[in-house]
């Protein structure tokens, strides 16, 4: 049975807040569209994280609306944004050089499926939903850390699987999976459950993934407040 203990808003908040803890001062981070974009809202004020996007802006600031909107400065989602102090503009070749070339410290992106080997599928469901990959494939293979931030299941359908069945975005590149129910670390070559939302039990997690995982010796509770 599908657990519906958390509202959509709370779910997103838990995930975004947790993902925001993954950065350190000075990190250059590229966020995916949708839920991952919300991660920027939870970066502590005293921490300097520089956000990059493939459409040509390093140093993305806050969203601009109303009469101050300038359609010539957007983020990768097409939203008008501020260019922060120290920002730079560049073309697509430079943008993808940053992303593919190993210059981005971390990326946070959503996924349709992630598997126990760290492969990720995020860009198409054949014959049903084919948005395309945009810069995601380059980012996932080039970024120093790949953090998947996604809802634990898709309305009950399992997303953390033994082996991805959907076309891959990248093979064995994911370092961390953050959902509203738990955190899995993949940095040591195994799927390791490191944190759990206190509202859920270990059995809840086992029943809601098909991947085989190991429980960390020092399993911690996620901060859900």
């Amino acid at each position, binding site marked *: 049975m599908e657990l519906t203990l958390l509202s959509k808003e709370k779910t997103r908040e838990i995930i975004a807040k947790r993902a925001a803890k993954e950065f350190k001062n000075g990190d250059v981070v590229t966020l995916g569209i949708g839920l991952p974009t919300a991660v920027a809202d939870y970066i502590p004020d005293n921490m300097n994280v520089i956000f990059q996007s*493939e*459409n*040509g*802006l390093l140093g993305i600031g806050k969203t601009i609306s109303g009469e101050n*909107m*300038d*359609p*010539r*400065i*957007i983020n*990768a989602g*097409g939203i008008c944004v501020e*260019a922060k102090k120290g920002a730079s*503009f*560049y*073309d*697509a*070749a430079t*943008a*993808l050089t940053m*992303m*593919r070339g190993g210059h981005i410290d971390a990326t946070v992106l959503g996924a349709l499926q992630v598997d126990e080997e760290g*492969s990720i599928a995020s860009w198409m469901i054949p*014959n049903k939903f*084919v*948005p*395309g*990959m*945009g*810069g*995601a*494939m*380059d980012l996932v*293979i*080039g970024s120093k850390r790949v953090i998947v931030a996604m809802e634990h299941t898709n309305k009950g359908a399992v997303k953390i699987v033994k082996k991805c069945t959907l*076309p*891959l*975005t*990248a*093979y*064995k590149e994911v370092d961390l999976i953050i959902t509203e129910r738990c955190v899995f670390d993949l940095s040591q070559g195994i799927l390791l459950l490191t944190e759990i939302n206190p509202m859920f039990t270990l059995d809840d997690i086992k029943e809601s993934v098909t991947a085989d995982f190991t429980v960390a010796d020092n399993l911690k509770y996620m901060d859900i407040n």
Partner: protein
Amino acid sequence: MKRIVSAKEAISEIKDGSSIMVGGFLSCGVPDELIDALVEQNTKNLTMICNDTSYPNTDKGKLIVNHQVKKLVTTHIGTNPETGKQMNSGEIDVELNPMGTLVERIRAKGAGLGGVLAPTGVGTIIEQGKKTMEVDGKKYIFEKPLGADYALIYGTKVDKYGNVSYYGTTRNVNTVMATAADKVIVQADEIVDEINPNEVVIPGIFVDCIVKKEKEVQNV
């Protein structure tokens, strides 16, 4: 000195079956009036190379909605449901490339290279049907150069020598596309006598003709 012409005149030689590159990321840095002229001209069976197909009623998206594109080489079609519809019905042949791969294929063409070795897509369906090569123990996909008959690009300021400069995030794929087409048409927000050489992003050598945007530019 480069020719300065109307949008209509600039695109008049684009014929049914031509291949075109169109600059812009979504609706930012797009040569919208060149596209409008092409919609008006109703040229069909185009091969279009672009970053995305924008939205149904804006710029690149209009060429899809008006059924002018037969083959599409792009990276993302999610913002324009009409593209997906025409892909599923078989009307448009869509080739999705990772953005970095698309950009480098275009850059390779413009730079006279025989292709690029990309790590992107190894172990995915992007690799299917392509040659791969190992370099220092790492696997790469061989990706071919990609050019077009025409490139329709955007420039914020263009001078009479064809030099182009940009504002904000408008340069995106315009810069690589300027190098990889037989004929390059740039739509300028503003045409000036001379751009400070220190500020030139696309040198005039790549530009064939210039079209001044007619509608007022927002938020200058």
